[in-house]
């Protein structure tokens, strides 16, 4: 649903590129990967990936105005399906694709970051620490009022993600231990929408990619461990996963350049800047 189309005035872009070439040539080393390429890449899938994808695409298109990169969301399921059916060149996945998916579409995996899935509540909520079994009871619909957990006397509003979400699969598998999610839970369609929903609902509880947690929502410690970048990196916070980009068959040309850029020092710096854990 989140779609970013970048179209720039050709002349301005040329001037911009020229000025960049002359003044920042030394800094643009990793962007040399894009030199000489022309054409378009379309990317879709995982919504946790979007901040990093947007920044990398912006830099690539500034360095070389002949390149056009469009980024869409949809969720991991959409990413795997669309790249498999060659509707996009790169599909993003917030979980490791299954063996069947890899085999069926001939997918090649590129894991360029590690990410946690953190439970979040509204910043005004007093309940900011839970045990795993408390969390499982909340999501199963057995614990229905914040009062039972030492909070205000209001019903707990559950938020979960759609079927296509890789974040949901990781959360259900590692935080809920494959426990049930109440059918009364509200369903939202992206990490961004989840953050907005919980930030606007003082009695809500949801889960987002750790890279998406900011001051608008409060992270909830699980068994005493807060979902922070440091805890994910140290391996203390267990609800973690890799962020993958997938191609159907070995990538070539511009697509390969873009993936190489994600693994380059500047690409990995973007990963850090956006709150994820780099792999190199």
């Amino acid at each position, binding site marked *: 649903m989140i779609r970013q189309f970048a179209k720039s005035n050709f002349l301005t872009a040329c001037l911009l590129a020229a000025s960049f070439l002359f003044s920042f040539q030394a800094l643009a080393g990793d962007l040399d990967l894009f030199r000489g390429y022309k054409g378009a890449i379309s990317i879709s899938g995982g919504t946790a990936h979007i901040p990093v994808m947007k920044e990398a695409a912006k830099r690539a298109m500034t360095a070389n105005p002949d390149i056009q990169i469009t980024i869409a969301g*949809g*969720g*991991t*399921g*959409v990413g795997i*399906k669309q790249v498999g059916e060659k509707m996009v060149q790169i599909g993003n996945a917030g979980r490791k694709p299954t063996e069947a998916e890899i085999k069926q579409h001939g997918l090649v995996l590129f894991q360029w970051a590690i990410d946690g899935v953190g439970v979040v509540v509204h910043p005004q909520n007093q309940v900011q620490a839970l045990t795993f079994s408390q969390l499982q009871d909340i999501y199963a619909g057995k614990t229905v009022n914040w009062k039972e957990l030492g909070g205000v006397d*209001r*019903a707990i*509003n559950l*938020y979960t993600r*759609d*079927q*296509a979400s890789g974040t949901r699969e990781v959360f259900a598998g590692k935080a809920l231990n494959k426990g*049930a999610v*109440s*059918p*009364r*839970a*509200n*369903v*939202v*369609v992206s990490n961004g929408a989840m953050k*907005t929903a919980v930030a*606007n*609902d003082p*009695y*809500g509880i949801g889960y987002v990619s750790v890279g998406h947690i900011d001051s608008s929502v409060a992270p909830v410690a699980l068994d005493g461990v807060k979902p922070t970048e440091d805890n994910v990196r140290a391996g203390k916070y267990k609800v973690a996963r890799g962020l993958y980009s997938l191609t159907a068959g070995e990538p070539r040309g511009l697509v390969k350049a873009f993936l190489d850029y994600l693994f380059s020092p500047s690409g990995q710096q973007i990963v850090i800047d956006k709150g994820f854990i780099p792999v190199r």
Partner: protein
Amino acid sequence: MSIFSRIVERLFSLAAAGSALLTIAVFLLLLYLALPLFEQGGFWALIRSPWDPGAGLYGIYPMLIGSLSIAFLALLIGFPLSLGGAFFITCFAPLFLRRHLLNLVRLLTGVPTVVYSFAALFLLVPFLREHLTGGSGLNILGAALMLAVLIAPTMIIFFVDALRRVPSGYLQAVTALGGSPGQGLVYIALPLAWPGILNGLLLGLGRAMGDTMISLMIAGNAVALPGSMMDSARTLTAHIALVIAADVSSLEFQSIFACGILLYLFTALLVLMVRLLGKFPKRSPG
């Protein structure tokens, strides 16, 4: 007839035939894709059972109820509003205002639904949560209120059109007999304009049933069968949007076609009713 106008005529009839064929082709495709469901007799089971993929249940009964309750509640809220609006524009508003009001209503029909949903998410939903319904504020009532706002302009335009077609001589006669404009409206204009009003009503219902964005963003999308209008619910359209990314060969994915067929049949039924209404002889004022 010149060659040019003959070519134009041919082009237009081709375009008409093309769009008609497309509609039929979509239905045939839906039927074809849902064929496995029909063959196993699963179609009816799908319509009647709940959604619980964990237990192997892929029924769309909660979504059917969600769609119907949201659409009809929207119509219930939107109809009096629209009728009042149409009365005001045709009869009670100062003359210089009427044209501008109607233009404003026309403008409103073009507002993208995502804009309505976005505004509602930050204004209506917190209000419902704190003051009216409790819970998360994402529920049937909220979605129906926004859908009422969405379909009102369409209905107003149809209503105004129907009311204006009432011959002005009849209304003048009411005035001549000492009747008020309100009496003329209720006893003369409304009965005469009724087929047109029903037309607008059915189209409004169709639009409410077919909308995706508002229910997806405001209704909450819970898969449980809603028990009241304070409950979070999922519509057929939102269900399609949420499940479309599932594996193509899975039963989850096939349930989408059942949703599609239901929506198609519902819309077709509405259009058929509109057509039949058009055939009714105009009642003469008695």
